[in-house]
């Protein structure tokens, strides 16, 4: 397992410490704290019925944000349903992320300059599409990568294998993440496969694979940076397994992790909390203080409040909106139905 910071926030791998400025190191911490707050608030807002579909992210900050931090604006993101934070840090406004959660098409309308598709619900589909995006970039001669994420359970899908194999066969610039949080809803990773690591699945595609401490933001960043450089230099895709954990349930739709997870396991992983260890590291370098952390927390809470307000104020969807987004030119059946619903909506 590739690691740079241990659980105590000590550098254990001097050689691979990424070249980040003090300001960048602090920015990483701000983003992780912000995203932890976002998770707590999202769970609360979901319970109040002010958000809809929500897949908790606490515990995965290093894995999600350390990887996104290594990307360029022109890189293309194909997230899974738990990967909303990466989209937000890539530039999706918070209120749109909330509209995605609620089920409003505007939440999926990526703003100009945010190169991404909305979170994929079909596990594995983002993998085969990433191979296509990456091949497209290669054909265009772009120095960019397609980046996609799935979970441990997702590695059992056919599209997972097809995606990495296609990207390998075309030597396409793709980075495939497997965020192994040990559970696919209630099913432990041991029931997905007899393979000892998920990173070794890269061997089947003949591509490079690496297993990274997914609670170590510096290791995730360094691995992603490495994969990105290889990819844009024409050396093909890479599979990165991040060993991580979700502290919360699978989703907020009634999943209860106490049915399938032991308290011991939860405690074991809480000791590895990416925020705790990175905070220790930054404090040892005199780069972080409680005051700074509180500032981030307050800022996050305030922005979340504003974003929810903005989501509330966004116009409600009409059937005619849904129809208008189906085709460039409406076929006869939708033209007819459009008239019908225009009439209904005018009453």
């Amino acid at each position: 397992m590739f690691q740079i910071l241990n659980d105590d926030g000590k550098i254990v791998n001097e050689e691979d410490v990424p070249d980040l400025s003090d300001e960048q190191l602090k920015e990483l911490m701000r983003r992780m704290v912000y995203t932890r707050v976002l998770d707590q608030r999202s769970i609360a807002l979901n319970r109040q019925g002010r958000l809809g579909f929500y897949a908790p992210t606490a515990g995965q900050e290093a894995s999600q944000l350390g990887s996104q931090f290594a990307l360029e604006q022109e890189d293309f993101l194909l997230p899974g349903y738990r990967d909303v934070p990466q989209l937000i840090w890539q530039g999706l406004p918070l209120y749109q992320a909330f509209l995605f959660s609620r089920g409003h098409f505007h939440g999926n309308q990526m703003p100009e300059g945010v190169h991404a598709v909305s979170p994929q619900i079909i596990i594995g589909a983002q993998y085969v599409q990433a191979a296509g995006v990456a091949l497209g970039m290669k054909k265009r001669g772009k120095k960019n990568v397609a980046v996609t994420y799935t979970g441990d359970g997702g590695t059992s899908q056919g599209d997972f294998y097809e995606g990495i194999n296609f990207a390998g066969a075309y030597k396409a610039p793709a980075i495939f993440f497997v965020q192994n949080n040990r559970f696919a809803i209630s099913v432990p990773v041991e029931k997905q496969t007899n393979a000892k690591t998920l990173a070794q699945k890269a061997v089947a595609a003949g591509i490079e694979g690496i297993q990274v401490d997914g609670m170590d933001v510096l290791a995730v960043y360094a691995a992603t940076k490495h994969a990105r450089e290889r990819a844009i230099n024409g050396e093909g895709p890479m599979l990165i397994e991040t060993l991580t954990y979700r502290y919360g349930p699978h989703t907020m739709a009634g999943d209860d992790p106490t049915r399938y997870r032991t308290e011991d396991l939860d405690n074991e992983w809480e000791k590895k909390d990416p925020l705790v260890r990175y905070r220790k590291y930054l404090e040892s370098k005199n780069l972080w203080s409680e005051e700074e952390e509180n500032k981030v927390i307050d800022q996050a809470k305030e922005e979340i409040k504003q974003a929810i307000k903005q989501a509330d104020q966004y116009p409600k969807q009409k059937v005619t909106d849904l129809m208008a987004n189906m085709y460039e030119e409406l076929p006869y059946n939708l033209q007819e139905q459009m008239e019908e619903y225009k009439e209904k909506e005018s009453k």
Partner: protein
Amino acid sequence: MAQMTMIQAITDALRTELKNDENVLVFGEDVGKNGGVFRATEGLQAEFGEERVFDTPLAESGIGGLAIGLGLQGFRPVPEIQFFGFIYEVMDSISGQMARMRYRSGGVHHSPITVRAPFGGGVHTPELHADSLEGLVAQQPGLKVVIPSTPYDAKGLLIASIRDNDPVIFLEHMKLYRSFRGEVPEEEYTIELGKADVKREGTDVTLIAYGAMVHACLKAADELAENGINAEVIDLRTVSPLDIETIIESVKKTNRVVVVQEAQRQAGVAANVVAEIQERAILHLEAPVLRVTAPDTVYAFSEAEEVWLPNHKDIVEKVNSVMNF
């Protein structure tokens, strides 16, 4: 005008669009150097290079995903699924993904993809090559489904499909690939999607068909004419969306209809055509709208195709029931 088989017309359409638009990419299993298992892409890689016409690993779902991803990078993908029976492997990419791309992104992204695939019976293919599965994709909002029956239609419809900025499923009946030649203009032309074609004008009964069944209907119409029944034959050409105007206009003229498909009765699109007619023209009907279809079994073992596939005799018989209702 040149005399072409349908497969030549398809190759000609692909060549035309590869030439016209540098974003057009043709890919699939064996479509490159080999020129396709039916020679539909013969010579295209040699002419346009491996960057434009290329082979893929053997995985239909991957091909679908590849097309979607390339579409997101501004390309105009024309992937091939070797036989439409293999669509089950790529059902998510087609119906679950590319069909929904424009809608789910609120119009930010789209999938200008044309999926070509051969299908259709009568040539003794092995299992799951000939199945008519157009009914499955016709039920998916966001797709258009095109099925030509002549070389002329194939070229104009394929060019229009490739130029369409939304996903089109373009199904090519294997029996029609080389069974006859037809006049095809050498220059480029398009046929509007969603427009049916009256292949034979008539006054007594309307036969609505698509694919190989168009020719079965024409043959049946000749036979019926000998008995004084003047049948009009409508070739749907696009099975989703349907050309309601052409259908209803004909029904109002003939007042009797038979819908003909090669697919099983519980499949295909015939039931949809019948429903549209009864909603829109019931007062013009002298008899119920009847269907000619295959029986509701799994597609026939190849030696049983002859007794299983619907043919012109089944059509004549059904027309007689409608005439004598």
